[in-house]
């Protein structure tokens, strides 16, 4: 894969390590950066027993932070998402740069009011009087036998809300750069970690760097069709592209990276060259990012299209538990290849 953003000097890190490094470097750079959430250190309040950082985070993305920054900047919370997400928003609007971790995006129901009615709207409702430099880390992704309440990929809900931004890093390099950008940003940003990417390795520069929010990247050039991937689906797209190449179909793959703002321009430029579009989205299809991108392309690039803008998504169902059903749920390369072959008439 080729990208202008690929670093020249770096070492290999896992996706989860890249997240951890971004948090650590931002907390070193700016002492107003704090992080709070459930089990982000773990075993809270047991320093007297010699217990510190018992978990290092549910997926070990926050490991080591409490030792370095202390329990006033790395705050384990009670299981009270509405309280701590709202408190982080309140802290962010009064001088802190606050990060809160929502363990799984499926849990957003219990704190959605704070995101929807405070974080997203305060600046607008207050006539620009306040900045809300708030980052919410959360997790998406099916495929782990965790069933319907721990597996959704509901980023589209947040894209729908004016006032929020959202990013979907797809590899260790983008995981670090987008998290640094999210924390430094003066608007609320939701940062979606994909559970299926934590162990992936890739080159990551040691120094801090920010990847601009709202910019997609082209990870594979092609001339016959544009495949847009979101988060882990980017790699489903590249897998499909390699399969398609065997049949002489040359697919371009775009990694969306931001779910708000959405980089429509890069996608439309690509479609004007390839004349075909498939969006591959692990989220459910109705009122989804995939639907939105297809609609935008149909509106603005209709005359360039040789086939209907199309979607490969999860079915419009909750995530099932049983392995064969869950395997059906998550879009895979075979489904992408099948869809593309219909569109290119082969």
């Amino acid at each position: 894969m080729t990208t202008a953003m690929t670093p020249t000097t770096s070492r290999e890190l896992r996706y989860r390590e890249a997240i951890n490094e971004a948090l650590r470097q931002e907390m070193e750079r700016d002492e107003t950066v704090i992080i709070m959430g459930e089990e982000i250190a773990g075993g809270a309040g047991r320093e007297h027993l010699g217990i510190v950082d018992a978990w290092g985070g549910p997926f070990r993305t926050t490991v080591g932070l409490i030792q370095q920054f202390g329990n006033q900047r790395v705050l384990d919370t009670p299981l009270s998402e509405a309280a701590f997400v709202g408190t982080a928003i309140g802290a962010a609007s009064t001088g802190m740069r606050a990060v809160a971790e929502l363990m799984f995006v499926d849990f957003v129901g219990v704190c959605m009011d704070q995101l929807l009615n405070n974080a997203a709207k305060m600046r607008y409702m207050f006539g620009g009087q306040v900045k809300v430099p708030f980052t919410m880390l959360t997790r998406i992704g099916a495929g782990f036998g965790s069933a319907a309440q721990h597996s959704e990929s509901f980023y589209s809900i947040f894209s729908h809300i004016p006032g929020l931004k959202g990013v979907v890093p797809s590899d260790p390099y983008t995981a670090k750069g987008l998290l640094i950008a999210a924390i430094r940003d003066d608007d609320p940003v939701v940062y979606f970690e994909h559970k299926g990417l934590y162990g992936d390795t890739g080159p990551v520069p040691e120094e801090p760097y920010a990847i601009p929010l709202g910019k997609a990247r082209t990870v594979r050039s092609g001339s016959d069709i544009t495949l847009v991937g979101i988060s882990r689906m980017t790699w489903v797209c590249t897998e499909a592209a390699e399969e398609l190449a065997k049949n002489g179909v040359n697919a371009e793959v775009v990694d969306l990276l931001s779910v708000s703002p959405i980089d429509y321009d890069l996608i439309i430029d690509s479609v004007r060259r390839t004349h075909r579009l498939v969006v591959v989205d692990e989220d459910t299809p109705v009122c989804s990012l995939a639907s939105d991108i297809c609609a935008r392309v149909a509106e603005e690039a209709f005359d360039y299209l040789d086939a209907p803008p199309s979607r490969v998504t999860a079915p419009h169902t909750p995530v099932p538990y049983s392995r064969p059903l869950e395997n059906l749920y998550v879009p895979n390369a075979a489904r992408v290849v099948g869809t593309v072959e219909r569109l290119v008439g082969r």
Partner: protein
Amino acid sequence: MELDREMLLYLYRTMTTIRHFEERGIPETGQRGMSGSVHSSAGQEAVPTGICAHLTEADYIGSTHRGHGHCIAKGVDPKLMMAELFGRVTGPNKGKGGSMHIADMSKGMLGTNGVVAASVPLAVGAGLTSKLQNLGRVAVAFFGDGGANQGVLHECMNLASVWKLPVIFCCENNGYAESTPVEYALSTARVVDRAPGYDMPGIHVDGMDVFDVFEAAGEAVRRARSGEGPSLLECRTYRYYGHTVFDNPLSYRTQEEQDYWRGRDPLKLFRERVADGGQVTQDELDRLDDEARELMEDAIRFADESPLPEPLEIYDDVYVDYPIGMMSRGINLEV
């Protein structure tokens, strides 16, 4: 409790300013076609007045949908508030918020809020900022008896207690959540009965008596400021009007009850309390009423003379930084 003359005048001026704002500003807003969701706090003046008398501009408050009194007591200019109600760009929120979102960050006013108890965690967050940055500030979270039953309040009382944050939880119990009487909706006799569950002091006061509120708030603010943690204050009060201007409260409460509470009017009680004190005269209080009346006429004039927003201001301040094309793409508002 002995208060000096300056404080007595301050308390009465604040209460009469709130009263006149509600009595004059709300109907005027309605006449300009923007009465939609405006909630009068007439009758409840003693609560924000007695509490905010202990605060400085550096301290924070989070407010409710019935928040004009909180704004005035926290130092927000009633002229700017009137402009906000009229949807004018000279309002603190540039006409983007209206009655239910008046905020003035320069006064530590974190916004009136249209979702019941939703501002509570914002105040808790402000308290966290104060604690982490050693600012010595306190934050007051105002909510009503309706808000007392919201989950987020209970999570926040627990969190603020666990983290010993400088927060005062202030319940303005006016007896009704919209039309639902508090005795129907509350599992305990009083909201403060819940304070022990969060290991914080619970103080019940007469919310029509500004001196009672002032005294209890003094202790809660002292406790917060000195790092001893949060308190819960319940101020029993009464709203004179319906939930909104469209609501006839006699559909769920009696004239007799309304008369009883009107008989305990906070401004009237104040006058009775200071009658024998000799520090301020009834004439001086009359003059404060007159000044408040004149201030509202000035405010209405100021608001009417202020410009309305320009159409493209619809896109301003959604974000600090965001491509306007993302908000306006494919949308032609001029057609």
